[in-house]
């Protein structure tokens, strides 16, 4: 367990390191932020001084070493756009995205698994077919379009739910949360539903496929023969056996949701961190790009870790030592 953990952490450090090298080379190939952002009224002199102050006149390897030197002391650098430490900017926006992603995750589990289970148990039922048809839509409709349609129907036409921002928030542990006020919950519903639509469909289909496959296995027949109640067979034995792929998908999907919730966030003007990476790349805000990707690597590594730990509880045959 300990060696496994150490090896995992070492891998993560390696990924972080190569990511910073890639970002430095990539951004350098494109250009520098001064040329993109500086006022057209600027004289050559002002431009040159800005380039020198930001270190863009130095060779790339020296820029990189300076960055690494500072980074090892915990200083990733100030964002060029926000003039604030890049990590602070991300941490400021992380709670909003985290909240949205968690609610979406919750919805995908509480809606996806029961519906998938039903469709797996009664595949020929009309309702099951409707569920499957819905899941195809959930897969194939683009998120931004669904988001805009939701706004058109529920906000513009019916006027039931707001579509802009987080609403009233409550501060807990120094972070603002929407789900603790009624106004905040109203603001959460549409974006969370929009973000979870794809996941719901995915979880539903995985659950259904798993149920269909497992239900005819010997151990299920044996359990029936033994006289266990159908409820216990399905909720304990079947469900536990089909959960591994579902947990994998939900886990990795959760990382992706946090990292790239950009479409939902911009459609619903949700002040999360999704759009941050796009904006930063557009103006080549290098400290921001590096800090953001570091954050994402950390999130993915953590989630993988948690997913692996859940495996061991779901299936005792899975041993961490053999996991790569």
């Amino acid at each position, binding site marked *: 367990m300990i060696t496994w953990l150490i090896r995992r952490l070492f891998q993560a450090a390696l990924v972080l390191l190569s990511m910073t090298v890639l970002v430095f080379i990539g951004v350098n190939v494109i250009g520098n932020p001064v040329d993109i*952002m500086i006022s*057209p009224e*600027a004289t*050559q002199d002002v431009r040159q*001084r*800005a380039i020198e102050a930001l270190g863009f006149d130095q060779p790339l390897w020296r820029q990189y070493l300076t960055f690494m030197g500072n980074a090892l002391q915990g200083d990733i650098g100030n964002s060029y756009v926000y003039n604030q430490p890049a990590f602070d900017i991300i941490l400021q926006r992380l709670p909003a995205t985290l909240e949205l992603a968690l609610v979406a995750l919750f919805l995908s589990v509480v809606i996806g698994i029961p519906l998938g289970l039903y469709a797996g148990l009664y595949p020929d039922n009309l309702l099951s077919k409707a569920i499957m048809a819905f899941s195809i839509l959930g897969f194939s409709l683009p998120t931004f379009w669904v988001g*805009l349609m939701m706004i058109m129907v529920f906000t513009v036409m019916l006027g039931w739910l707001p579509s802009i*921002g987080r609403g009233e*928030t409550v501060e807990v542990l120094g972070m603002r949360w929407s789900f603790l006020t009624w106004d905040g919950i109203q603001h959460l519903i549409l974006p969370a539903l929009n973000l979870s639509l794809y996941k719901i469909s995915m979880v539903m289909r995985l659950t259904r496929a798993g149920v269909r496959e497992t239900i005819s296995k010997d151990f299920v027949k044996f359990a029936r023969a033994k006289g266990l109640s159908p409820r216990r067979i399905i909720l304990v034995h079947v469900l536990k056996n089909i959960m591994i792929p579902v947990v994998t998908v939900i886990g990795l999907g959760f990382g992706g949701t946090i990292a790239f919730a950009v479409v939902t966030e911009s459609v619903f003007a949700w*002040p999360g961190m999704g759009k941050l990476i796009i904006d930063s790349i557009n103006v080549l805000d290098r400290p921001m790009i590096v800090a953001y990707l570091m954050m994402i690597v950390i999130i993915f590594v953590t989630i993988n870790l948690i997913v692996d730990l859940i495996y061991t509880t779901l299936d005792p045959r899975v041993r961490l030592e053999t996991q790569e």
Partner: protein
Amino acid sequence: MFRTKLWSATALTVAAAVGGVQASASDLVFGRSTPQSVLDPHYTVQPTGVAIATDIYDRLVRFGLDLQLEPGLALSWKPLDEMTWEIKLRPEVVFHDGSTFDAADVAYSLERASSMPESPSPMSVNVAAVERVEVIDDLTLKIVTKEPTPLLMNQIGHVFITPSELGDATTADFNSGAAAIGTGPYKFVSWIPNENVEVEAFRDYWGPAPEWDRVRMQFITDPAARTAALLSGQVDVIDAVPPADVPMLKANADLTVFSAPSVRLLYMHLDLANDNSPWITDTEGNPLEVNPLKDPKVRKALSLMLNRQAIADRIMDGLAAPAGQVAAPGQGGFSDNMPPDPYDVDQARALLAEAGYPDGFGMTLHCATDRDVNTAESAQAIAQMWARGGIKINAVDCQPYSVYSSAATKGEFSAFIWGRNDSSPDTSLNLRNGYMTYDADRGFGSYNRGRYSNQEFDALVAAALQEFDQETRYQLLRDATDIMIGEHGVIPLYFLNATWATRGGITFDANMAVNSMIQYVHPADAM
């Protein structure tokens, strides 16, 4: 437990949407396309830094709807000699914290604006000409410049004035609100990054009384979401209305659309530097030995092939105006001799033949996808119009702006669409940076990406930059424009409209400079 001071505006607006309850007329929710990245008004000249600052802080001058200077915190200004200016300040102006505005505050702000080196778009642009600032008395300043600078007020007029008592306040102090103190009509209440900024009326404002008690500026970067927010009544005003939504908004009786041609010009840069331009070929696709774009006749032909009105009407949904020069109408230096070129394919073909290209030549056109609305569509249309005129179009290549702008600056394109908004009172800086012969040492032509060069033009602009008499300066600029546009140093395409939309009878001063200031929003009963 801390509750954000939303004064339940969200609840109110939702209630308004649900039950038709009108929110108090003196509260405003403004849906804006540009989020605020810093509250420090001296960090950057980007809209993300200054868009909200204009309502919180004042400047020495105000920029009128016609782009001309009006007295702001400075009551009057005059040059004592070529290098020295005397500025008289407005008396009895108070800051939001109650302290009195005086000359020391101006000196402090100008100094602070020049001391932010680690900004990629520094405010120091606007104080680069200042050698030193002398405080004569509480309300009089003397400014000594490094060189004769007739446009000094236009430059330092962009610097927001903060109290000198702030000392070495950092960007973080401004962001927290502690240092966000100005003399403007609205004072800072709160900022939730990426979500909203709230301000409230400053009752001791020296100018016209603020028309709104409280204003929340809600950042909605997605254009469709902005429209939806207005339709559903969650916001009262939106800026940067997407052109495609305008007919639908106009048809809605609750809403009003305000649109005006802006100073945002889209124009075609042509590579005039290289003898064999990278994206020019013969009609077979082989590289050409000479660069046809260096011939003014070819450039004129390219301009005549364009049906600018059709692009403005069809592609821009009528929200653009054909451009014949780089100055917007009304700007100092706008020349009456230079209307947009007519659409005349026959003449264009004749000119091409005259220049030695009866069968045309091959060309690839470049543009940015994510900078201005529908630029890629315009590029497609332009390519087709050129093809109709006898040019063989090899490709239309549109790229993300971050990649595109770097490549364009390095001179890697042959024909490429560029956007530029010059909202200064006259064109002298625009002509200096955009079209004078590139000279890194003297700082001329720093944005002259096509490397247009004409000594007569250079001399006229250089003279204008040193000319203190306004009418003489404007005449020099007009003459310079006649030369540069006369030989098509660039091909102007169109000016984009700036568009706002409001609900409930609220009015907006549509303006050329594309400012979404609260001061431009007026309650329905004000009319």
